[in-house]
């Protein structure tokens, strides 16, 4: 008895789109002129324009990566690199144009903000249209703004860190982002401040043939704590969109940064994201990375453990339905003594979906007494599903305890039977097991997100019978 291979009509409830209300957009395609137009439109300082143009040069010169997912469908000439939806950013939802506000209402953002968030940022195409942070946090010196505002209002600190964790020539898509970035988040948490409730950014692509290139920079000063959550959706178009973000995190000594992603792009989005954190002495960085949507995702959140005693956690879950390829993973670079890291990856392939885990653990010669552990499990639901595991490791110090385990299996026949023997239908039984398989990931999410994720999974698992 195998899991029934019912033809799924994946019910993507975020596939709607609004009328185009944009107030400015660059022409299709990318060139120094387009980059200059973006910079000029934003009124940026000269150094940023130079940074962008240099990055563009890197982008144009670098070949397309050939080692991961199939990216041959991307047509860089047929993309809008900058679309500005509104003239002014809102501080209150009332300031946001109605059509856009309704979109975020449908996505449940204002409601979530009222209930359990410390701050919210909502990006629509290229710009953040709404931004707010609780007054008490602002008073403590916590900065949570879009990245453009960060550059404008906190240029000194912005410039000190921007592009230092992920240099513009890091890879082709980081270079592209560095050339045309817009929006995203700038988070600064002063020394010793603990932001106990999460900050949330929500990214929405609305336009057809759109490229979204948000840029996020998080600086957590000594002993501080912050939990940043991002969610993303897009309309379903027949043309492909491109999302190439760059996220840089600096966790100063003793700081603790948790970064949670629930990626639910529509299945016409190429999601090619570079995320990297630096953890200094005694700092902790956690990436909680869920990938449910997109056509192709290539994303490998990284932690550079630069300071003694730093700790990294990467917990990821990927679901690939028909036609999706989730090529996701992690990197932990141990560059200091007594550093530890732990990686847990769970992935599920359904229909003709394909998941790939690609990871890298590196222990440098000076990093003594290192402990790292990697665990990847993959579940295949159908005859045609596929799963790959590519866990690279380079250990250059003998004083290390490194372990890696991986399994690939299908849903157990005995598990299904056990649940069926209690009256649960096969399809529901499969859904239960799938939820259980993702449990290590889900239990790290705030309650509201856990509920949402389980609901999304249930939708993905459901057949034509509701």
């Amino acid at each position, binding site marked *: 008895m195998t899991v029934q291979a019912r033809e799924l009509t994946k019910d993507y409830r975020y596939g709607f789109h609004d009328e185009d209300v944009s107030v400015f957009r660059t022409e299709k395609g990318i060139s120094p002129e387009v980059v200059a137009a973006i910079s000029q439109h934003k009124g940026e300082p000269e150094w940023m324009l130079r940074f962008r143009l240099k990055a563009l040069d890197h982008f144009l010169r670098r070949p397309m990566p050939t080692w991961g997912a199939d990216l041959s469908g991307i047509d860089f000439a047929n993309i809008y690199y900058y679309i500005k939806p509104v003239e002014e950013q809102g501080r209150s939802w009332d300031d946001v144009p109605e059509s856009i506000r309704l979109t975020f209402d449908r996505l449940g953002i204002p409601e979530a903000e009222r209930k359990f968030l410390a701050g919210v940022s909502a990006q629509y195409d290229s710009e953040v249209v709404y931004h707010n942070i609780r007054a008490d946090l602002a008073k403590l010196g916590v900065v949570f703004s879009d990245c453009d505002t960060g550059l404008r209002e906190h240029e000194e600190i912005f410039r000190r860190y921007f592009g230092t964790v992920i240099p513009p020539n890091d890879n082709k898509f980081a270079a592209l982002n560095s050339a045309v970035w817009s929006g995203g988040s700038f988070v600064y948490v002063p020394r010793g401040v603990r932001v106990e409730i999460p900050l949330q950014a929500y990214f929405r692509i609305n336009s057809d043939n759109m490229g979204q290139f948000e840029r996020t920079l998080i600086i957590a000063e000594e002993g501080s704590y912050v939990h940043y959550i991002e969610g993303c959706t897009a309309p379903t178009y027949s043309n492909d969109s491109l999302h190439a973000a760059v996220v840089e995190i600096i966790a100063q000594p003793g700081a603790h940064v948790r970064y949670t992603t629930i990626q639910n792009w529509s299945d016409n989005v190429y999601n090619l994201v570079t995320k990297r954190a630096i953890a200094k002495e005694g700092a902790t960085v956690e990436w909680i990375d869920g990938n449910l949507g997109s056509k192709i995702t290539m994303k490998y959140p990284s932690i550079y453990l630069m300071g003694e005693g730093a700790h990294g956690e990467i917990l990821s879950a990927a679901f690939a339905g028909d036609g999706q390829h989730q090529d996701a993973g992690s990197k932990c670079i141990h560059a200091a003594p007594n550093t530890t890291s732990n990686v847990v990856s769970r992935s599920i392939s359904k229909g003709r979906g394909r998941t790939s885990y690609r990871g890298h653990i590196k222990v440098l*010669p000076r990093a003594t007494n290192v402990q790292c552990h990697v665990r990847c499990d993959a579940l295949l639901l159908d005859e*045609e599903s596929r*799963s790959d*595991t590519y866990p*690279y490791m380079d250990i250059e110090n003998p004083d290390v305890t490194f*372990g*890696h385990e*991986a*399994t*690939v299996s299908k849903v157990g026949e005995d598990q299904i039977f056990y649940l069926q023997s209690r009256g649960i239908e096969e399809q529901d039984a499969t859904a239960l097991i799938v939820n259980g398989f993702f449990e290590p990931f889900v239990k790290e999410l705030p309650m509201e997100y856990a509920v949402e994720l389980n609901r999304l999974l249930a939708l993905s698992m459901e057949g034509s019978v509701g």
Partner: protein
Amino acid sequence: MTDVTVAEGAIARRRLGTLVDGGPAWLGDRRTAAWDAFTALPLPSSSRDEDWRRTDISKLRLGDFAPAGPAAEALVAAARARHARALPQAALVLCGPDGAVSVDHADSLLAQGVIVCPLQEAALRHPEVVRRGLSAVGVDGAYFAALWNALWAGGAFVYVPRGVEAMTPVWVSHLAPEAGAVSFPSTVVVVDERASLTLVEDRVGPGDAAPRLSVGVTALRVADQSRVDDIPVQQLPPGTWHFATRRAALAAGSRYRLLGATLGAGLEKAYWDVLLEGAGAEADVLAVCHARGRQHLDLQSLQLHRARDTRSNLLYKVAARDLARSVYSGLIDVERDAVHADGYVLNRNLLLSRGAVASGVPRLEIKANDVRCGHGNSVGHVDDEERFYLMARGVPAEEAERLIVTGFFADVIDRVSQESLREWLTALLAVEIAGAPAAEPEAATEDAAEPGGRGS
């Protein structure tokens, strides 16, 4: 394009011509096709080729290596002594680096109808079986396999007919070439239906550290319901560049067991491929590797599940010390039709010194869904608690470490069923573990092609 313009070198078109002229037409065609493929391929690059990402051979100058002459008498005697000590009852095939082959102690096997003879001779006398044996090793794929296909000479051939259980093992000694020369160690084995064979392949050379090149292939074809035990031992001199492909194609219901020990060479890139082609085929690959000095030992394994109910299991245990570097990459590839495939890889590394490095990637590519596959991978050092425990019983620290490393290898070595062979392997390992100083590379001339340089 490969630079093989040095006319007097061993790796040259002129050499190919001699070999083509001296053999049967089908083999000549095969050699020519392989040469064309080889010369069309660039030298594998650590920046361009995923398989070579951690093994840098950019300093290798193939054109510098001369054709090998006959083996020195001392080396022949040493090789015979190894056979006499480890498995004297085995038939002995001595393959010189120059292609000269001698066969001894094979009478009982010949009486059973087993063929044990030089490969070149077999290519003339038993072309169909040799072609069967070679068919698993394509001429146009990998760089060094193509080179071997074009230029091999000498070599050992073993054929076990249907239903025959070979009474004694076959021991093939491949002797390293002299300093500055190249050899092409070759073994082709065909074991027919319901037959069985134990093969030992010993690659051995003198102790000096002069540059040498060895490009070898071992091809095994294991027919339905048959059984092969395959025991490769590699103890080449420390200046040797060693490129080896070992490929076993397994038919339905067959059982293949590899028990390997990798100890020598300066830089090695070995491919161990197991092709599970018939339903119910099973393979166990168990190997130890000890690396020291500046050795760079790279093993790449493939467990290709092509048929249903196939099972494969690989255990690779590596101890590395000094500035040695171990690279392991493995792939379990389960094709769509291979339902109920069961594949596992476990790679365990013990780093014994600062400066020793272990790298690798155990990969899984699973395209069938009703499978059970997994891998494990660990890197550690000698456990302080274990060392303390032994020291508390009066064992000095260094001795304790040697005991622990010996114990680390024991679960592989213990599976060798022949007692004398097991003892010999244990003794070889003991010498490595005790760390008799590795011969330092000879005072390198400016452009000596010395392997084992640390890649980035």
